[in-house]
C-alpha cells in the first residue's frame, strides 16, 4: 500500500516539474494580432525570445502580461529581442504579437518560449542521491555546449532566411520593373511620334502648327 503511494507520488512529481520549451514560426497578416498563452507556476524562470524573419521593415509589436493583466514587457516595432522574468504568480501568462501598424505587409515571426529548466532524459534520472561521476558530468557539459551550438544555429538560420527572402524579392522586382520600364520606353517613343504627327496632319483649316 505504501509502495503504491510512493509510486503515485513519484509519477505526480514528474509532471509537476514545470518544463516547457515551445518554439513556433507563424505568419502574422497585416492588421492582425496573435496571442499565445501559457500556464506557469510561481517562481519559475521564463524566457521569451522573438525575431521577425520576413516582411516589410522586419518589425513587430510585442506585449507580455501576467495573470493579473499587468504588463511585464511592451515594445513597439522591435526586430528581435529576448526577455527573461521570474513568474511571481501562478497562472496564465499571455504574450501577443501585433502587426496592426502595417497596412499590407505580412510578417513571419519566430518566437521561443522557455519555461523552467530542462527535464531529465528519463524520469528516473531526476532524483540523484549521489553526485555525478566524471563521465556523467562531462556528458552534461557537452550537452549544454551542444545546446548552445543548436541555439546559435537557429539564430543563424533565421538571419540567413531573412537575407535570402530579401535577395529573392529583389531579384523578382528587378525583373518586373525592367520589363515594365522597357514597355513604357517603347510606348512613349511611339506615342511621341504619333502625337507629333497628329499636330501636323489635320483639318486643312490649320496650316502647319
Amino acid at each position, binding site marked *: 500500500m505504501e509502495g503504491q503511494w510512493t509510486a503515485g507520488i513519484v509519477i505526480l512529481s514528474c509532471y509537476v516539474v514545470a518544463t516547457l520549451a515551445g518554439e513556433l514560426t507563424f505568419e502574422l497578416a497585416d492588421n492582425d494580432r496573435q496571442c499565445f498563452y501559457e500556464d506557469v507556476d510561481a517562481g519559475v524562470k521564463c524566457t521569451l525570445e522573438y525575431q521577425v524573419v520576413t516582411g516589410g521593415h522586419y518589425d513587430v509589436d510585442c506585449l507580455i502580461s501576467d495573470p493579473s493583466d499587468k504588463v511585464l514587457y511592451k515594445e513597439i516595432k522591435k526586430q528581435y529581442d529576448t526577455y527573461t522574468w521570474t513568474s511571481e504568480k501562478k497562472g496564465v501568462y499571455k504574450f501577443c504579437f501585433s502587426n496592426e501598424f502595417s497596412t499590407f505587409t505580412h510578417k513571419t515571426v519566430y518566437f521561443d518560449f522557455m519555461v523552467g529548466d530542462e527535464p531529465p*532524459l528519463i524520469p528516473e534520472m531526476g532524483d540523484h542521491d549521489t553526485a555525478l561521476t566524471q563521465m*556523467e558530468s562531462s*556528458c552534461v557539459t557537452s*550537452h549544454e555546449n551542444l545546446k548552445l551550438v*543548436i541555439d546559435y*544555429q537557429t539564430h543563424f538560420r533565421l538571419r540567413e532566411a531573412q537575407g535570402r527572402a530579401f535577395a529573392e524579392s529583389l*531579384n523578382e522586382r528587378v525583373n518586373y520593373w525592367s520589363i515594365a520600364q522597357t514597355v513604357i520606353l517603347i510606348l512613349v517613343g511611339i506615342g511621341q*511620334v504619333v502625337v507629333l504627327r497628329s499636330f501636323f496632319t489635320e483639318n486643312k483649316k490649320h496650316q502647319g502648327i
Partner: protein
Amino acid sequence: MWPSGAKILLFLVLYLSGTSALYFHIGETEKKCFIEEIPDETMVVGKYKTQLFDKTINDYLPSSPGVGMHVEVRDPDDKVLLSKAYSSEGRFTFTSHTPGEHVICLFSNSTKWGLFAGGKLRVHLDIQVGEHAIDYSQIAAKDKLTELQLRVRQLLDQVEQIQKEQNYQRYREERFRQTSESTNQRVLWWSIAQTIILLVTGFWQMRHLKSFFEAKKLV
C-alpha cells in the same frame, strides 16, 4: 485494490498531464499555420489538444471529444505530406524528405461546435523537431541502455542534428549566392538592353519624323 487516495492522485496526474503546452485561440473557419524550416530526414512530432468554450460555465471545458482538428502538412514544393483529421486530442508525426520550409496547418473540421462555442476554440500545441522529438525513455527500455549510455546517445543525436543543419546551411547559402548572382546579371543585361532600345527608339523617331516632314514639305 488501489486505495481511494491513490485513485485521486492518479486522476490528478492524468488531468495535469494534458494541460501543459502553449495554447492559442482559433475561430471556427480559421486556419492557423506554422512554418518549420528543417533539413531533410528530420522527424517532427506535434501534440495538440482542443478545448471548447462553454457559455454556461463561461470557461473552457477540460476536454471536448466531439471537436476534431484537421492537420495538413505541406513540404517546400507545396506537396501535401500529411493531411489527416484527428480527434480532439492527438499526436501527429512526419519526416521531411526535402530540406526547406514545411508548413503545418491546423483547422477545425467540424461545424457543429459553432452553435455552442460562440466562435472560440482553445488549441494547445507543442511541436518538437529533430532530437527534441526523440523519446529517450522508450529507447532506454528498448535497447536496455544504462544512464551513461543514454546520455552519450543523446549527445550523438544532438551532434547528428547539428551536422544535418550545417549541411542544410551550405545548400541554402548556395541558393542565396545563386539568387544574388542572378540579380547581378539581370541588372547588367537589362541596363544594356534598355540603353540599346533607348538609342534605337531615338534614332527611329528622328528618321521617321524627318521623312514625315519631308513628305509634308515643311523641311
